[in-house]
C-alpha cells in the first residue's frame, strides 16, 4: 500500500530545505534570486510570507518568464532563515541544485 502523504507539509518543506542546504546548492537573498532567474540557473524560488507584495509579484513575474516554480513559504523571513539554518533573516531564496533532497520533485 502506498504510504499516505504527510498532511503537515509545512514541516516537510523545512526538512527538505535543511537537506538542500547540506547537500545541494542554493542562493539566499533578493539580488541573487533575480540574477539566477535571469541566467536560467534557478530551479525553485522560495519567498517568505512577509515580503512586500510588490517585491513578491516582481519575483513571481520573473519566475513566470523563466518558467521556474515559486513556493510561498508559510512563515516570515525570520522563520525562513531558521529553516535554512542561518542566524539571519532570509526573504527570498533560490534552489539551484537539490542534491539529495526531493524538494524539486514534490513541488
Amino acid at each position, binding site marked *: 500500500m502506498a504510504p499516505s502523504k504527510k498532511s503537515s507539509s509545512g514541516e516537510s518543506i523545512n526538512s527538505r530545505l535543511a537537506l538542500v542546504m547540506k547537500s545541494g546548492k542554493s542562493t539566499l537573498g533578493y539580488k541573487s534570486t533575480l540574477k539566477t532567474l*535571469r*541566467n*536560467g540557473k534557478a*530551479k525553485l524560488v522560495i519567498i517568505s510570507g512577509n515580503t512586500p507584495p510588490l517585491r513578491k509579484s516582481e519575483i513571481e513575474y*520573473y519566475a*513566470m*518568464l*523563466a518558467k*521556474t516554480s515559486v513556493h510561498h513559504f508559510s512563515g516570515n523571513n525570520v522563520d525562513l532563515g531558521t529553516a535554512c539554518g542561518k542566524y539571519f533573516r532570509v526573504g527570498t531564496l533560490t534552489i539551484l541544485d537539490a542534491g539529495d533532497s526531493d524538494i524539486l520533485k514534490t513541488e
Partner: protein
Amino acid sequence: MAKFLRGGKVVIVLQGRYAGKKAVIIKSFDEGTSERPYPHAVVAGIETYPLKVTKAMNKKKVAARSHVKPFIKIVNYSHLMPTRYSLELDDIKGAISSETFKEPSQRLAAKKAVRASFQKRYTTGKNKWFFTKLRF
C-alpha cells in the same frame, strides 16, 4: 529555468536618463565582455513616444504627432525590467552592434535606422503596447 533576456524581448529601462522608457533587446551578452565584465544588453528604445492622434486631426498634424525619437544604449541586466512582450525587428539587428557605440557618427547612423524601423512599425498599428507611454 529558461533564459528570457534574448533578442526581441521588450524591456523597461529602470535606471538612468531613460528610466521608465520601453526598449527592445537587440543583442544580449549573458557572460559580459572584457570591457563590460557583467551581463548586459544592447537595447534600442523610445525616448519620446508618439502622441495620441484623433480622427479630428488633419494629416499634417497626425504626421507631426506620430514622430518617434529613439535611443540606443548598452544597459546592465539589473537595470532592465523584462516584460512578456516581444518585438521582432529584423532590419535593425544588423545596424547596431557594440562597434556602433565607439563613434558618434556611427551612433547617429544607427539611430536613424532605428527611427525608420520604429516609425514603420508604428504606422502599421502592430505592437501597440510598445509605442504607448508607461504611466507611473
